């Protein structure tokens, strides 16, 4: 899939994950080219979240390897790995009344000594992440009082403060209203153009077609298809993977694919 020579991007091969005896991720090979924004799609229970956790190296697979920029992620020292990869979970919350700025500053953890204070460059990176994720107005708010959508953007800011080269996100558009969805995905596209390799699990196929040039389609723990969005997202595939009837149109302004679903009879 990635060709014989190793890319500088993300390459996973033969990933198996078993949970309670059940194979949740089953021999997955996938790759994401460097500096691109790809979508991971598939029906509920396809194994998207589990695969993302493995790709982010927060969960060890039963077997298989995950390489990024030529390094096996699981053999990198943890802190070094956390300076390269950051991961935004689907739902994360805390009991602690931290300010939004404190939360974003947690992203600097792998870059700092355990006993040293944040220095000026840390503060600058945190400020930039807050601005990029558009949470400046929330900076002094208590994170436990935020709405789900606001919190999601704060978690994105925390991931950006980590200054990653590889950014993995599980449903980053969850809880967001449509304007916020467009701005978050737009931001991920901008990050990719600046060289960050981005992979996000997305439910909304039209967000995937609008922002991602590549998709990986997961079904039953296996890669069903992967490649250029316009080539992969066909009515036949949507019917087989999701069991829905759909027509793929062309967006009148962007020219990108637009999926129109037919109601069940």
């Amino acid at each position: 899939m990635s060709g014989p020579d190793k890319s500088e991007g993300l390459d996973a091969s033969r990933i198996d994950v078993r949970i309670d005896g059940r194979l949740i991720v089953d021999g997955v090979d996938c790759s994401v080219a460097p500096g691109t924004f790809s979508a991971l799609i598939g029906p509920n229970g396809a194994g998207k979240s589990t695969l993302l956790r493995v790709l982010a190296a927060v969960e060890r697979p039963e077997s298989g390897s995950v390489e990024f920029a030529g390094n096996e992620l699981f053999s990198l020292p943890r802190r070094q790995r956390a300076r390269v990869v950051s991961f935004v979970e689907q739902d994360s919350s805390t009991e602690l009344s931290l300010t939004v700025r404190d939360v974003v500053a947690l992203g600097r953890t792998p870059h700092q000594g355990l006993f040293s204070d944040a220095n000026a460059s840390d503060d600058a990176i945190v400020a930039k992440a807050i601005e990029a994720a558009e949470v400046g107005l929330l900076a002094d708010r208590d994170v436990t009082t935020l709405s789900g959508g606001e919190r999601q953007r704060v978690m994105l800011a925390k991931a950006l403060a980590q200054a990653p080269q590889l950014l993995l996100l599980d449903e980053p558009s969850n809880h967001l209203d449509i304007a916020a969805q467009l701005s978050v995905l737009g931001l991920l596209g901008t990050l990719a153009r600046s060289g960050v390799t981005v992979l996000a699990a997305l439910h909304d196929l039209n967000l995937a077609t609008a922002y991602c040039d590549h998709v990986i389609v997961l079904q039953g723990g296996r890669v069903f298809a992967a490649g250029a969005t316009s080539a992969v997202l066909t009515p036949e595939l949507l019917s087989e993977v999701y069991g829905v009837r759909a027509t793929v149109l062309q967006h009148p302004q962007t020219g990108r694919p637009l999926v129109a679903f037919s109601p069940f009879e």
Partner: protein
Amino acid sequence: MTGAVLAIVLLLSITFAITIGPSSITPVEVWGSVLHHLGIGESPLSLLRDGIVWQLRLPRVLTAAAVGAGLAVSGAVMQALTRNPLADPYLLGLSSGASLGAVAVLLLGIAILLPVAAFLGAMLALGLTLLLASSLGRITPSRTVLSGLAVSALASAITSLVIFWTVTGDSYREILGWLLGSIAGARWPAVAIAFTAILIAGLPIMLSGRILDAFAFGDTSAAALGINVNRTRWTLLAATALLTGAMVSVSGSIGFVGLILPHAVRLLVGPRHRALLPLSAIVGGIFLIWADTAARSVFEPRELPVGIVTAIIGAPIFAILLTRRRSEA
């Protein structure tokens, strides 16, 4: 800033708590006596009253400070690691396990050092709690808490059984006082045990503030920030068991200090652990000094076990914390 003010309050608390009691002693006399024993100058006090300061009240106050500090820090760490604001060493069965270990040594004459037995009891209880929690599937905070309750109940039952079979007459009152939590008998050996535990377990915990902060959003989030989640959790839990075990061995089980003090300190300085842990230690020390002073002076000449004082103050605050949680849910 806050830390400096609290450190001064702690020093003043130690000084003034020593002045309180049937034999009245001034703060200046307290320091005169202390300096004399450190080799500076003559004691301003008679031999008898000097003995009251140096042999009785000072070790007792220092033990209270160390035990309060140790319990408050243990509570703050448990709350962070289980992401449960109602957590403390009692919750995961550590204190009951430590009590059982200590009672086994005291009453059954098992020949190991009391603090070691309490530590082993705390570790055993913690191990059982986590084993039970993990046998239910993935270890979650609520499973850990429920398992802790079960282990705690079992350890308490065995403790009661041991006491029931072996204790007679006068020692009954003594052992009951210890079980309820008491610093009445604390002399210099107790000070040595409590401060050694603070030094070898408390200090490393207090230096791990940034690591605990990374747990704010759970294990996955901590792992994504480069933290070795399992090793950190086990190391810190073992250090907490050591700290709790040592404190229980000198003072019995004193409740609620670990639960409520970290909350009070969060109101002062916010939830970030690098400030929270050392300040919880100081405030925990101040709190227990005054709770113990109240325990020995309010019904003078009768003494209450200090655990009763902390429970009378702590239980209503615990109830308030519960109702606040409910309104959040």
